[in-house]
Every structure is written in structure tokens, then in C-alpha cells.
């Protein structure tokens, strides 16, 4: 897949118990499966990011089940109560089975 690039904004450090905002973005066309090719008239097959998950040290933090009605380059913002220093892992699951992932560490403040 061309140029699918996940990006995440997470504070580099946070105190235990602090609530942080996490912003995520992945460049992806989110082809809805509703559109037709203007030349051939054939329906362009659906290809979207259908699931997004965030885990912290293996514990689930946040999950989104995504339908074609989410805009291209899906942006998701959510918050997390930091239990302590550790690593956040983000995964985006594509319709074609590809998993795009990214990890971010949070240091103790």
C-alpha cells in the first residue's frame, strides 16, 4: 500500500495518574466501496482501516471499530489516565489484513 503512514502525538513524559490526550492520524484513502470509477463505471472495492486499538504495556486502553463513513486519513483523538511510565502501542488494521503499528514510550514525570 502506498504511503500509509501512521502518526501519533503523545506527551514524552507524564506523572502517574495524569490524564493525557492522545492524537492519532494515519494517511489512508479509506475507499468506501460506494464510489464508481468514472471511466469504467465499476464500483471501486472497499478498502478502509476497520479497527484501531491502543494498548499500554499490553493492557487495552482504547479501541475504535471503523466504518467507511470515517473520513480519509482517519484521525482519532482520545485520552488516557497514565498508570506510570511505559510503552503505548497503536495498531491500525486494514481491510486487506495489513497491520500498521507504532509504539511510543512515556517516561515518568
Amino acid at each position, binding site marked *: 500500500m502506498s504511503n500509509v503512514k501512521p502518526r501519533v502525538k503523545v506527551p514524552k513524559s507524564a506523572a502517574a495518574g495524569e*490524564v*493525557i*490526550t492522545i492524537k492519532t492520524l494515519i494517511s489512508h*484513502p*479509506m*475507499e*468506501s466501496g*460506494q*464510489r*464508481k*470509477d*468514472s471511466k469504467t463505471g465499476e464500483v*471501486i472495492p472497499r478498502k478502509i482501516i476497520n479497527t484501531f486499538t491502543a494498548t*499500554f504495556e499490553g*493492557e*487495552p*486502553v*482504547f*479501541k*475504535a*471499530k*471503523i*466504518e*467507511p*463513513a*470515517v*473520513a*480519509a486519513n*482517519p*484521525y*482519532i*483523538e*482520545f*485520552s*488516557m*489516565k497514565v*498508570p506510570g511510565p511505559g510503552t503505548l502501542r497503536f495498531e491500525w488494521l486494514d481491510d486487506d489484513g495489513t497491520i500498521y503499528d507504532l509504539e511510543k514510550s512515556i517516561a515518568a514525570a
Partner: protein
Amino acid sequence: MEWTRRDFGALCAGAVATAALVGRPGFAFAADDNGTQAAIDAFTGGAPVAEGGVDIGAPEIAENGNTVPIEVGAENAAAIMILASGNPNPGVVTFEFTPLSGARSASTRIRLAKTQDVIAVARLEDGSFAMARRPVKVTIGGCGG
């Protein structure tokens, strides 16, 4: 191929033309006729749903229906489902929260085919359900809605 504003508009214009052709204006746009209620029932399992208690943050008028910023939140929510009552399919996104979540709110950007109500249904931690709806006017990509 990118999903452009022009493509989106053409798609909608086609739908309008079809509606006009068969002489039943609005047949393609019947409110809540896209399975919204079925989607709510699937989410709740038919349990009663209280009105209110869910916050939806959305622009009153969205200039571009291809990317409409939206935020939902509900206290003690375990999951929140967003539905678009006027899209070809009602489902938009379902957020699931955990004990590690901070505020039980999240935001994203969605596609709206036309002026319509955006609906958020929350499953609360005690197993009950709450919902709210919010009208959003869509100008471009919205078939003039």
C-alpha cells in the same frame, strides 16, 4: 485514487437525478431509512435507550461533508457508537473505553452525505444505554441540503 470533493458531489448529484427521474423526490433520502434503527437495536440488543446524557460536539453547518469533525462523550460510558442517519449506511464508528481511558470521550472526522442527524448511542458501565442526536447541515458534498 483519492476521494475528492468533486467525486463525492457527483455521487450525490447522481442520486438526486435518479430521485427526480423516477418522480419520487427524496426517495433516496428518506430519513432514518438506511437502517439506523436496526443498527441501534443491534448495539443495544433491544434494551431501552434513555434520551440525553451523551454529548455530541459537531459543527452546526459543515461546509465539506467529506470531513466533518465530531466529538462524543458520555460519563461512565463503556462504548459509544456514532451513526449517520442520512448516509447510505448508518454505521460510522464505535469507540470502546477501558479502565485506562481518561475522559470517556473521543473525537474523529467523519463523512456525511447530506444534511442529517448524527446519532450517538452510549453503553454505560452499568449496562444501560443512552443516546443523543444532533442535526448537522452539510453544504458542499451535501447535494445542496
